[in-house]
């Protein structure tokens, strides 16, 4: 016998909600292409990465269902990205101040 129960606690994401997330991702894609056409100097990179991060959050929280997972998993994912941030950030502390 298989002791089956839905692992998401029976939590189902509605189609309308999912299409809404998709529409937000599309809007962000249009925005990032539009912003890239304006010359903002260094701010271009900042804007592109900010929009990409908003898109990444939408994918992780809703498509990947993390918003509705248990807190252990949520913390694990958060810490993984913090470690990635430290890895990239600390490299730039070195690079940016090299003669």
């Amino acid at each position: 016998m298989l002791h089956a129960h839905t692992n998401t606690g029976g939590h189902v994401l509605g189609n309308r909600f999912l299409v809404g997330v998709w529409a937000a991702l599309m809007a962000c894609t249009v925005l990032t292409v539009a912003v890239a056409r304006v010359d903002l100097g260094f701010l271009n990179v900042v804007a592109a990465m900010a929009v990409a991060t908003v898109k990444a959050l939408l994918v992780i929280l809703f498509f990947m269902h993390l918003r509705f997972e248990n807190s252990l998993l949520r913390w694990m994912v958060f810490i993984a990205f913090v470690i990635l941030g430290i890895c990239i950030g600390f490299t730039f502390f070195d690079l940016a101040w090299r003669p």
Partner: protein
Amino acid sequence: MSETHKDYDASKMGMWLFLFTEILLFGGLFLLYAAYRHRYAAAFHEAGRALDVVLGGANTVVLITSSLFVAMAITALQQGRKVRCQWFLALTILMALVFLVNKYFEWTAKFQHGVYPGSEHLAALPQGQALFYSLYFAMTGLHGIHVLLGASLLGVVMAFVARDKVRRDDYVLLENAGLYWHLVDLVWIYLFPLFYLIS
């Protein structure tokens, strides 16, 4: 009757742990990109002009839409709509193929201009531009392999759904395959602006 217990939470956590190694793999490459872009800003800017924003943008739309389809496949199976789930999985795989065909045309055009890893044309370019193209081929290439693997995995899950090995009350394999597919989308979300929108 044998007692089988599946721990779905642990199964999903295992998948996320694997995804962390993938994030660090691509993270390392993004770090390399960032370091070289910092050093050769003008050359990266110049080299980025040669990439086709329309093709890159089209592939962004294709991947985001495929992510929607795989999420809708999970919803369909949770509602017990097996055929609908299979259709959405088929559409997801179709989107993966469209992505790869686009990539094929994009890379072929680059090859015809003599831009491919190890080419004489690339060696003659300024070092910063050569680095940009090397990273472009390495990162979009590695990402392309992930698209291929993810689509194959979804194909296997589709066969499991057909045989009711993945079904309404036991679908963690579909969820985990979906997580992998979303990761592929996630990596592209950063690759697109960094390579195609740089100029």
